[in-house]
């Protein structure tokens, strides 16, 4: 046995329930037995540490990965990754992926009859700096239809994958754009039942981040779990 400080549980309503019938794919994939409680040990408070060696200097810029520039509205997406106590999460890998401006993913399974853009793949990554800051340059993704229900459309979003300092702080989520009229119709966005928690998935337009004559700036901060102050027997 060793004493380790674990990570705090999120408040109820923060995360979606696994079984969210309005999102049809959960029906056969949501576990139906209760989760087994696990107090955190070294196995949970440790996690993969990424050096900078895997991330290239242009990996954060999704508009400069091909010969030409992608079509669409160029944007900067940036923010801070912090823990629940407001401390910066430094040197941590952030991965993103998204569809193009027409709402089409570079993926064989995407059957949406919208054009692919030869100048846009839609995958990027970066490592947070000493203040926990990440920054991507990309184009605004389009809305797209999906087969969940009659006339189902996803609001524009960027997928985010974050690790944080521990296996217990892993977070995969989606960032949305402010004021999207599809929010009211999207069971994935609405799977977060607590409206205040849902709003934390929405970036805001920030004119201080907007670069004149070049790109709109969006600010989106991510908060990972905070750590218990006192170690417990684990």
């Amino acid at each position: 046995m060793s004493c380790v400080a674990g990570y705090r549980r999120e408040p109820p309503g923060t995360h979606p329930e696994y079984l969210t019938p309005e999102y049809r794919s959960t029906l056969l994939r949501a576990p139906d037995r209760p989760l087994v409680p696990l107090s955190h040990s070294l196995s949970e408070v440790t996690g993969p540490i990424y050096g900078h060696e895997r991330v290239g200097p242009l990996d954060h810029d999704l508009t400069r990965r091909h010969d030409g520039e992608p079509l669409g509205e160029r944007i900067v997406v940036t923010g801070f990754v912090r823990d629940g106590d407001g401390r910066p999460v430094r040197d941590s890998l952030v991965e993103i992926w998204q569809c193009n401006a027409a709402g089409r993913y570079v993926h064989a399974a995407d059957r949406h009859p919208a054009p692919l853009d030869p100048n846009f793949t839609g995958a990027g990554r970066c490592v947070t700096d000493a203040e926990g800051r990440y920054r991507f340059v990309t184009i605004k993704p389009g809305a797209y239809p999906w087969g969940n229900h009659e006339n189902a459309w996803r609001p524009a979003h960027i997928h985010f994958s974050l690790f944080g300092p521990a296996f217990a702080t892993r977070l995969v989520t989606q960032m949305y754009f402010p004021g999207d009229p599809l929010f009211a119709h999207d069971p994935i966005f609405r799977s977060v039942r607590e409206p205040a928690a849902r709003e934390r998935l929405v970036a805001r337009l920030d004119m201080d981040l907007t670069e004149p004559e070049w790109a709109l700036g969006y600010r989106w901060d991510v908060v990972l779990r905070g750590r218990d102050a006192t170690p417990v027997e684990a």
Partner: protein
Amino acid sequence: MDPTPSQTVGPFFDYALPYAGGERLVDPAAAEAIRIGGTVFDGAGEPVGDALVEVWQANRAGRYRHPDDPRAELPLEDSFTGFGRCPTDAQGRFAFTTVKPGPVAGQAPHVSVIVLARGLLRQLYTRIYFPDEQEANAADPLLRSIADPALRSSLVARPGADGLIFDIHLQGDRQTAFLDV
């Protein structure tokens, strides 16, 4: 500060998250290399062909490559990060080449697992334990806490023709034990 909610990884991560060699934690030619593979199934028993399985484990000495592992007396191996990532194929299969971890601080040797997929609005956590560690498994705090023998044994891999087999059943009578981490 309030944490950011989780959302599903969706069906389209395949060109972004997997990376070359993600499923090889060690060189398959290494003498100590073992293979752990399995299939992800949904509640209807159908394979899940669009899942992503991630693993995190200690090295053979039971040490994690992480600053919060205080046991400096245990060796680290330069080439071993302890992390792996493998998307499932069309038949729902995944496989990792790794080493058997040592015991960690009062726990039987185990590999920590995260499962991500379309239809999972949050990641699922589980663990892989080893079938040749009956004594250590019997003393493991997590395994001991699971009263249902079938649920408990869902965390123990079984020997197969070319390595250990660890199938993941997302739902139903054979559901894998998932952990509230």
